[in-house]
C-alpha cells in the first residue's frame, strides 16, 4: 500500500496534472465569487482559463491525440488576451463613469 502510494507519487501522470487543474479551477471560482473588485474577478477568470489549458495540454500529452490539445490551448490563450484587453477597456470605462470598480455598486441598468 505504502509502496504503491510512493510509486504513484513519484511518477506524475495524467491524474496529477488534472488534479492541479481542478484545484486551480476551484481557486479561480472562489476568487470570482468572493471578490467584489472587477479586476480581481478578471484574475480569477484567468486562473480558470489556465486550469482549462492545463487540462488540454495534459490530455494532449498523455493520450493518442497529440497536438490538437496544444492548438486548443493556443487559441484559448489568444482568446484570453483578447478578453483581457476588452475587459480592461470596459473596466476603465466603468471607473470613469462610476469612479469605482466595486461590482456591487455598479448596479444601474440604465447607463
Amino acid at each position: 500500500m505504502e509502496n504503491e502510494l510512493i510509486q504513484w507519487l513519484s511518477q506524475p501522470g495524467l491524474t496529477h496534472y488534472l488534479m492541479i487543474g481542478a484545484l486551480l479551477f476551484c481557486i479561480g471560482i472562489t476568487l470570482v465569487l468572493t471578490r467584489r473588485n472587477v479586476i480581481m474577478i478578471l484574475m480569477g477568470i484567468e486562473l480558470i482559463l489556465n486550469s482549462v489549458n492545463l487540462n488540454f495540454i495534459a490530455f494532449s500529452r498523455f493520450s493518442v491525440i497529440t497536438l490538437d490539445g496544444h492548438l486548443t490551448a493556443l487559441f484559448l490563450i489568444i482568446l484570453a488576451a483578447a478578453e483581457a484587453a476588452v475587459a480592461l477597456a470596459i473596466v476603465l470605462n466603468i471607473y470613469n463613469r462610476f469612479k469605482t470598480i466595486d461590482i456591487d455598486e455598479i448596479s444601474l441598468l440604465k447607463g
Partner: protein
Amino acid sequence: MELTTLLFYFFSLLTIGSAIFMVFSKNIVHAAFALMFTLLGVAALYVLLFADFIAATQILVYVGGILILILFGVMLTTKGFTDNLKTLTTNLRPVSVVMTLVAAGMIYVLLTTTWPVAEIAEPEGTITGLGTLLLKEYILPFQVTGVLLLVAIIGALLMATKVKHQQ
C-alpha cells in the same frame, strides 16, 4: 526520485500556493504578482508536459501581456499606493468551504476514473507539427482568431478613446 518529478512538485506547489495566496491577499497588487507566479508555474508545468511552444506563449502573452494589462488597470483605477489597493472580500468562509468540497469531489472523481493513457515517446519539438496543423486543418480557426484579435484590439481602442472624449 527523478529531477522532473521534483520539479513537478515544486512547480505544482508554486502554482497552487500562489493561487491560494491570491484568494486570501487583501492587496490587489500582491494578488497580481501572485498571479504571475501561478502563471509561471503553469508555464513550467507545460514544459514538463512537452508543450514548449505553449509554455513560451503562456509567458509571452500572460505574463508579458495580460498581467501587465491587469497591473495597468489596477494602477489606473486606484489612486496609487498600498492603502488604496485593499479589496473587499465577501462570503469568503462559505465559498471556501463549498469550493473545498467541490475540489475534494473532483479529485475523488479524477482518482477513481481510469483514464485511457497512451504513453508516447517524448516528442522532439512541437513547433513543426503545430505549424503544419495551424496552416492545414486549423486554418479556419486560425484566421478567425486573427479576425477576433483584430476586432478586440479595435474595440478596446475605441472604448479607450471614447473615455477620453467623455472627459
